[in-house]
């Protein structure tokens, strides 16, 4: 089934020099920021070619973050899905264990890459936005490691539902600034970080946490996260002697997903699924599924699919998972959707909650609510597949941060 055949017209060559993936992406920022993102692009292009930079990043990835993360065959889930199958199928389920990284998610892959860049650029102050707090923690962590001032913007609503992460960031020496504007979630935190950046252009590096924002962020964050997919290629060859048949990852802004997908985009035989958060159901309007329930627009520096009303006002995203609760998505995903290369699906809060518990009970792995969405989709897909089908799901975060929230949803008092 799988093949190493590459497609002539590559899906891996974007973005163009304007930062565009087809008509998505670009650089829609205020003039004040324009020179800064051009400077960043130049610094990144230079760093990419620098062996010392690559060496330092690899060294930190290995000894500080704990890479490579294992590729784990999940036997009991594999069996469970086979039992659910009415056609005698089930698929072999593998998890890419990025939840084992230092700080508990894939976010560290990106923050290490960016902080090394910030240091090369002589910046002393790091700002970041965060939703679940995972990116905030990963940023505060590397800022502590490199002795830089760190300010994290976080929506007031998210601060409430992710209290443990707020405390972690503070322990790490970061200043966490609550954002009450709008709905007090990730998009508002991003607005506020952009406002900070405009006012502190000389000393500040904006460390964006997902593969979105103005060029070069979507491409740069993708490159840092591609370590996930690159490792999977090697590991699955070692384990199975061939490429996987399908890949599944959850999508907030899309960084863990593009990191897994990108190295496989030109492998025709690999089916790819991005899983958005359907919240209470896409049809209810209370969801965070930009590709399944939004339309193209311009926000936060790029053109991409957005949740918005007929007037072009951005509407609030909703998901049980703070990390998926964003009304936009990285522009490369918008392009991949329109190209038809990646299938974008959505699962609800309740489906994710069930998958969260299933994974915990059967594999002894407590997933974050974000990858629990990916698993909920695997639960639908796997029973329809043949038994020899190789499915790799990105377990991009662990659920420690979510246990209080999940207890609340399950009506358990801690």
């Amino acid at each position: 089934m799988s093949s190493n055949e590459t497609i002539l017209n590559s899906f891996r060559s974007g973005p163009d020099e304007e930062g565009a993936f087809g008509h998505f992406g670009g650089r829609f920022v205020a003039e004040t920021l324009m020179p800064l993102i051009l400077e960043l692009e130049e610094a990144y292009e230079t760093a990419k070619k620098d062996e010392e930079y690559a060496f330092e990043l690899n060294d930190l990835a290995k000894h500080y973050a704990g890479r490579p993360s294992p590729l784990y065959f999940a036997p009991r889930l594999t069996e469970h899905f086979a039992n659910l199958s009415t056609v005698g199928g089930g698929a072999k389920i593998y998890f890419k264990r990025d939840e084992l990284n230092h700080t508990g998610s894939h976010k560290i892959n990106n923050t290490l890459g960016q902080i090394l860049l910030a240091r090369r650029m002589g910046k002393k102050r790091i700002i970041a936005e965060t939703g679940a707090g995972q990116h905030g923690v990963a940023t505060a962590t590397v800022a502590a490691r490199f002795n830089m001032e760190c300010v994290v913007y976080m929506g007031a609503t998210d601060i409430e539902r992710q209290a443990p992460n707020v405390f972690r960031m503070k322990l790490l020496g970061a200043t966490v600034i609550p954002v009450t504007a709008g709905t007090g979630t990730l998009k508002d935190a991003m607005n506020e970080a952009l406002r900070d950046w405009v006012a502190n252009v000389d000393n500040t590096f904006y460390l964006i946490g997902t593969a979105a924002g103005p060029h070069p962020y979507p491409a740069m964050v993708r490159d840092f996260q591609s370590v996930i997919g690159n490792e999977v290629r090697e590991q699955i060859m070692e384990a199975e002697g061939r490429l996987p048949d399908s890949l599944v990852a959850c999508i907030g802004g899309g960084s863990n997903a593009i990191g897994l997908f990108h190295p496989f985009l030109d492998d025709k035989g690999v089916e790819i699924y991005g899983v958005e958060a359907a919240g209470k159901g896409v049809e209810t309007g209370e969801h965070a599924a930009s590709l399944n329930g939004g339309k193209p627009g311009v926000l936060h520096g790029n053109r991409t699919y957005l949740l918005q009303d007929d007037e072009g006002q951005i509407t609030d995203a909703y998901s049980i998972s703070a990390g998926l609760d964003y009304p936009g998505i990285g522009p490369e995903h918008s392009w991949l959707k329109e190209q038809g290369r990646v299938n974008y699906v959505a699962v609800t809060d309740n489906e994710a909650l069930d998958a969260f518990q299933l994974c915990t009970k059967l594999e002894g792995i407590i997933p974050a609510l974000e990858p629990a969405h990916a698993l909920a989709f695997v639960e639908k897909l796997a029973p329809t597949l043949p038994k020899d089908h190789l499915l790799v799901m990105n377990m991009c975060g662990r659920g420690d941060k979510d246990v209080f929230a999940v207890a609340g949803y399950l009506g358990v008092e801690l």
Partner: protein
Amino acid sequence: MIETRIDRRFAALKNEGRAAFVSFITAGDPDLQTSLQLMKKLPEAGTDVIELGMPFSDPMADGPAIQLSSQRALNAGHTMAKTLEMVREFRKGDNETPIILMGYYNPIYVYPADKFLADALAAGVDGLIIVDLPPETDTELCLPARDVGINFIRLATPTTDEKRLPAVLKNASGFLYYVSIAGITGTATPDPHVVHKAVAAIKQSTDMPVAVGFGVKTRQQVSDIARGADGVVVGSAIVSMIADSLDGKGAATSETVERPLALVKELSGGVFDILEG
């Protein structure tokens, strides 16, 4: 491109020997009728050019005052059609005062852009300031606007260095808006000396008028900045007056038109100081 009301107004003021006083209000803040009433009275209070904000849910370049005014307008059910309706109504009684729509790209993009330009022109709009459309994106709206005869007013900022200035000026028309601080609207206070130097440097490269805004709040600041610029923009201070005049439920009161107007009267006096020496 063809002459607009903006070109005519700046030329006339140059003859008078003074800078333009530019007032910003958000369309539909706190409601359509009050906002329109206020807009109609801005010229007689001393406004030479009107900047009308198109409310947006995510105004990334704006400070709290304008964020809140945007939110008030949207909560009152404001739409792009209503913004254009305000311009049309205004034009019934004033065919001279230039009107510039200011805001963010997304509401225009989904309108969509070509229809927006046609409707804006028909309503009597003269210029656009779109914060998140830098020169790199000129094919989106800047060039199509120029083609229909609407000025695309470009922002230059303290981070716009000599290397970048030509790109910023290239397709700009009407006037150049110099953002006096690296920051968001209504926050830091600009230093007139620094601003004058920056404006003088820009004027080496262009014959276009240069107006200055962001952070101007007092008559003294207007007076100081007007001595070294072709226009002074006041926004957050006016919009804050609207906020202060509202009742406990956020609705307009009898003060909501009068208080911002009184402020415009006071501040706009600053552009005449230069005539008195």
